[in-house]
C-alpha cells in the first residue's frame, strides 16, 4: 500500500519568501502570513439573529458584532461579515466547525472557510501609507480605530480588513483574502510596499 502524506500548504506557501524585500534598511512594512487558523462563517437562521448573538455571548463572553467591527474574545475574534453574520476566527483546532456546530445548532448555519482564505498581517510605520495604495477605506486612526472592520476590496479582490490591537506601539491591520486570489494580491502588496522596505515572515499563530 502506498504511503500518503497530507502536507498542508497555505495559499502563499509557494510564494512567500521570508526575509527582507524592497528598499534596504529599516523596514517600513512588516508582512506576516498567519497559517494555522480556523475560520467559520456563522450566519443566523431566519429570525434567529438574537438567539445567535446570545449563543455567541454565552460561549465567548462577547457580543457578536452588529456593525463592521472585529470583537476580540479570549481565544477567538468575531469579525462582522454582513447583516446577521460574522466570521469566527481562532487558532487552528480551537473552534473548528465541528466544535461550533452543536453550539449554534438551530440558531445559525455554519460554513467552514478555514481553507478558503489567506490571512495576512500588515504592520509597521508605513503600513497605513502602503494600504492607501490598495484600499479605498480611510484608515486614519480617528476613523478606523482598533477593532474597526470592513468587507471591502483591494486590487479588485474581495477582502475582509480589520484593525487589530496595536503591537509595540504600532498599528496592526489584518487582511483575509480569498485563497485562490492570495498569490496575486500578495504580489500587488509587495509592489506597493517595496519602496518602504519590507520584512516578510509567516507564523503559525494568530497575533
Amino acid at each position, binding site marked *: 500500500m502506498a504511503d500518503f502524506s497530507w502536507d498542508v500548504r497555505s495559499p502563499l506557501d509557494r510564494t512567500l519568501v521570508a526575509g527582507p524585500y524592497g528598499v534596504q534598511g529599516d523596514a517600513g512594512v512588516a508582512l506576516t502570513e498567519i497559517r494555522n487558523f480556523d475560520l467559520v462563517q456563522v450566519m443566523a437562521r431566519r429570525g434567529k439573529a438574537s438567539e445567535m448573538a446570545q449563543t455567541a455571548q454565552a460561549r465567548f463572553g462577547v457580543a457578536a458584532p452588529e456593525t463592521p467591527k472585529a470583537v476580540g474574545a479570549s481565544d477567538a475574534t468575531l469579525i462582522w461579515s454582513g447583516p446577521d453574520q460574522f466570521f469566527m476566527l481562532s487558532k487552528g483546532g480551537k473552534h473548528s466547525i465541528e466544535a461550533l456546530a452543536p453550539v449554534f445548532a438551530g440558531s445559525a448555519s455554519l*460554513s467552514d*472557510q478555514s481553507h478558503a482564505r489567506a490571512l495576512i498581517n500588515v504592520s509597521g510605520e508605513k503600513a497605513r501609507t502602503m494600504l492607501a495604495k490598495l484600499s479605498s477605506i480611510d484608515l486614519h486612526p480617528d476613523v478606523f480605530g482598533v477593532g474597526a472592520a470592513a468587507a471591502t476590496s483591494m486590487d479588485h479582490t474581495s477582502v475582509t480588513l480589520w484593525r487589530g490591537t496595536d503591537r509595540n506601539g504600532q498599528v496592526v491591520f489584518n487582511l483575509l483574502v480569498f485563497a485562490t486570489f492570495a498569490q496575486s494580491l500578495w504580489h500587488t502588496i509587495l*509592489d506597493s510596499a*517595496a519602496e518602504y522596505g519590507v520584512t516578510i515572515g509567516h507564523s503559525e499563530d494568530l497575533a
Partner: protein
Amino acid sequence: MRGDQANRLNNGGLIDRSAPLNFRFDGKTFSGFRGDTLASALVANGVKLVGRSFKYHRPRGILTAGSEEPNALVELRSGARREANTKATTAELYEGLEAASQNRWPSLNFDVMSVNQLFAPIFVAGFYYKTFMWPAKFWEAIYEPAIRRAAGLGRAAQVPDPDHYEKAWAHCDVVIAGSGPAGLAAALAAGRSGARVILCEEDFVLGGRLLADGGTIDGLPAAEWVARTLAELLAMPDVRIMTRTTLFGVYDGGTYGAIERVNDHLPTPPEHQVRQRLWRIVAKRSIVAAGSIERPIVFAGNDTPGVMMASAMRNYINRYAAVPARRIALFTNNEDGWRTAETAIAAGLQVAAVIDARPDVSPAHRSLASKGGFPVLHGSVAGVDGGKAGVRKISVSLTGGARAEVEADGLAVSGGWNPAVGLTSYHRGRPKWRDDIAAFVPDGAPPGMVAAGAANGAFGLGACLREGFEAGAAAARDAGRSGSTGSMPIADDAAFSLTPLWHVAGKGKAFVDQQHDVTASDVELAQREGFESVEHLKRYTTLGMATDQGKTSNVAGLAIMAAVTGKSIPETGTTIYRPPYVPVAIGAFAGHHRDENFHATRLTPSHHWAAEQGAIFVDTGLWKRAQWYPRAGEKDWLESVTREVKAVRSGVGFCDVSTLGKIDVHGRDAGTFLDRVYINAFSSLAVGKARYGLMLREDGIVYDDGTTSRLAEDHYFLTTTTAKAGLVMQHLEFCRQVLFPELDVQLTSVSDQWAQFSIAGPKTRDLLKEIVDPAEDLSNEGFPFMGAREVKLRGGLKARLFRISFSGEMAFEISVPARYGEAMARNLMIAGKPFGVTPYGTEALGVMRIEKGHVAGPELNGTTTAADLGLGKMMSTKKDFIGRVMAGREALVAPDRQVVVGIKPTDKARRLRSGAHIIPKGETPGPDNDQGYVTSVCFSPVVDQWIGLGLVERGRERIGEIVRAHDPLRGEDYDVELCNSVFYDPDGGRQRG
C-alpha cells in the same frame, strides 16, 4: 546661441548656484542650476527658439512660465522613456536631462516644412474638410498620412514604458488646489481648526505668484512669510502638503483626481519607486486656489520668439534670475502688467517702452517711466518685426492713428487675467462674466467646493489672503472642526485697472491659439461660414483643442467671435469645461494594472504541482487552468490531448475542477429555495444524492447548470460553471434577499474552501480504493451513480466524494479542504501509478464532454432554452420556478428553433471548425439560408475524426441529413452530417457501471 548662462543674473532667484546641472537640448550641451525648469535654463542660456508650430512650422519661443504653455513643448528623455509634448516650462531640470524640439525637420533652425507657411491660404480653419474631400479614397491612403506627417507634435516612444505607476487613495476634510497666497491662507485656517488638510501644488515649490511677484505679508517679505507658514503647516500632523501634484478633476461624492509627479524630476525613478502616482482624494470640502492665467493680446506677429507673457517674464527674472531679453518692451492694457517694467528696471535691464492700451496711466508709473528714461506709448502693438532669432522691432499704432516703432529684443504682453475656472466648472458649471475685471469667474461649483483668491477673480494680495483664509475656516467648520483659526494674514491690495483689449487688427498672422495655429482670421472665417456657436467654433477651428486645452487662448477666441457677431462676451458664452486640467499619462490611470498584473489571477489548489508537471496553462476568466500536460516527444497539443483522452477512456485520469463555483445552501427552506431557482426539483432529492440542475434567467433563457448534492436535510452543496460562479452567487443572493425573503436560507461561497478533482475512467474505483479508507464501500451498490457523501481517506483526512461524470466514464469527483489540494494531486499520482493514471487538462475535458454531447459555455450562450439544449423534459410542471412563464413565450417554443445537434464532416479527414454556418445543400450561403452554426468542436479519438456540436434549425428532426458547413472567415465550405449529439456510449452504461 550661447551655452554659458550668459543671461543669468549674478544674484537672486530661487536657484541653487552651488548645484550646477548639465543638460542637452537638441544635442547641444548647456548648464543650469537646481531649481530651474528646462524653460528657465534655456532662457538663462539665451535660447529663444524652442519649437516649430503645429501647422505652419513657424518658429516659436517660450510664452509662459507654467502649465498653460502652448509653445515650448519638447520630447523629454530618450528611448523608451521619451515623452512627447512635455512642457519645458514645468519640466524640472536634472543632471543629464535630454530634450529635443518637436515638429521640425531636419533641424529646428532650418525646418523644410516651414514652406507650409506659403500655402497658408489652404490651411485655414476646416481645411481638411474642404481641401481633401476628393477623391474620397485618397483620404486614408494619401491625405491623412501626409497631413499627419506635416502637422502633429512630438513622437511617442513606440515601446513599452519601463517605469511604474500606481494609484492611491487619500481622505481629508479639506483639499486645496494651489499654494499661492489664497491656498496657503486656506491651509493655515483649516489646519489650525484641526481639519485634515491636503494641499496640492503643481509646482515643486510652494508660493504660487508670490515666488515671482513677492510682496509684504504680515510685515514680512513674501518669501519669509511662505517659509514661516510652511513650517507651521508641517508641524500639523494632519496637514499633508503634496508638491508636484496637480488636482485635475472633481468627480461624484466629493472625490477628486490628482496626479503626483513623484519622480519626473529625476532621470529615472529610484529602484522600487514609481514615476507618477494617481490619487483619488475623498474630501468633505475643497478650495480651488488655483490662481489665474495671464492672457495674451492677439496681434500680428504675436508668436515671434521673444514675445512673452508679462508675468512669465517676471517669473524668469525674479524666480530664476534668468533674463529673457536685455531691452524689453511692455504691451499692457492693465495696471498689473507694469510690474514687469518695475522688475526689469530692478534687474538692471532696459525698458524700451511701455505700450499701454488704456487711456490713462497712473502718476506713479509716469514717474517710473521718466526715471527709467523710457517712453509710455498710448496705443497698441500692431506688428512685430523679427524671426527665429527673436523680436527686433515693434510697430505701435498710437491712439489717434499715428504709428511708432520700438526697438527691443523682448516684448512682454499682458491682456489681463483669467481665473482658472476649470475645476469649478467640471460638473457642467458655466462661469459668469465680470465686467470690472473683464473675465469669467466661477458661478457656483460642484458640491462642497468653493473658489478663493485669484481663481475667484480676487486679484489683490490682501484679497487673496482674506478669501483663502475665510474659505479655509468655513471648510473646516463645515467638516465639523472647531479649533481656533488664529489671526488672518494681512497684506495690501494693489489697484487693478484694465481696459479690455483682445485683438489688434493688423497685417500678418495674429495667433489666438498658438499650439494649434489658430489665427484671428480663422475665427472670423468660422463665423462667416456659420460656425458661430463657441462649441462649433472650437471644433471647426480646433481652437482650444490642443494639449494646453486653450488655457491662454479660449477667452480671446470667443471675445473675437463676440466682436464679429456683435454680441457681448457673456452672450457668446464659453465651451464646456472637462477634466483633466492638465494632461495625465494613461500609464497613471492604468497604475499597477498592466502586463501580468492587468487583472488579478486565480490559481487552483494544484497549480504549483501542475506547473511542476510542465502543464500548459490557459486563461479562463481570471483563472490559470492546466490545458494539457505535454510529454517529451509529442509533436503538438493535439497529440497530448488525444493521449490524455485515450488514457482516461481506457484507464484512469484526473483533472482539477476546483474552478467550478461552489456554494453552501443552508437552512430549513433550502430545498424550496432550490426548487424555485432551478427548473427541476431539489426538495425531493435524498440526502446523500446529487442531481444535475438547470437554471433559467427571468426571461426563460438558460442561465447556468451544475450538480447539486444534498449533504444534510438542511444543507445542499451547489456547483456552478466556472464562468458564472460569481454571477450565480449574486443571482442567488438577489433571490434570497429580494424575491424570497420569507425563506430560511443562508448562502456562502465555498469555491475557495475546496480543492475538487474529477477522477475518471474504468479504473477509477481501483485508484480510489488505494486512497480511500478500506471501510468505505465504493461498490456500485454502496456508492451508486449520483451518490454524494463524506468519506474518510487513509490517514484520517475527511473528503467529500461525488459520483458524477462529465466525461461519460465511470467517474467520481473528490473534494478536500483546499490546503490539501496539492497533496491530493500528488497522492492521486501515487495511488494511480499501478493503473497508469494520467493527469488531464481542460482540452481533454472538453473533448470528452463533446463526445458525450454535454452542453457547456458555447451552448449555454445566453440565447438557448432548455429545450434547445435537449433538456426540455427537465422543466418541472409541478412547481413554479424562475423563468418558467417567460420560457413559454411563442418564439421560445417555436418548432423551428435552432437546437443542439451533433455534427461531423462527411470527409473523415476534414477538420471541423467552430463558427462555421450551416446551410442546406444546394442553397446560396447568406442570411436567408443560414440555419445555425457549429458551437463546439474537437478531434474525437473515439470516433477517429473531427466532430462537433451545433445549434441547427430543427436539428434533432434532421439526423442523417447532409448539409453544408460554410465558413467565410476561413474561406471553407464542406459537407457535414447532422447526427446524434451523443457520440460516445449513448446508453450511459459506462458511467453507471
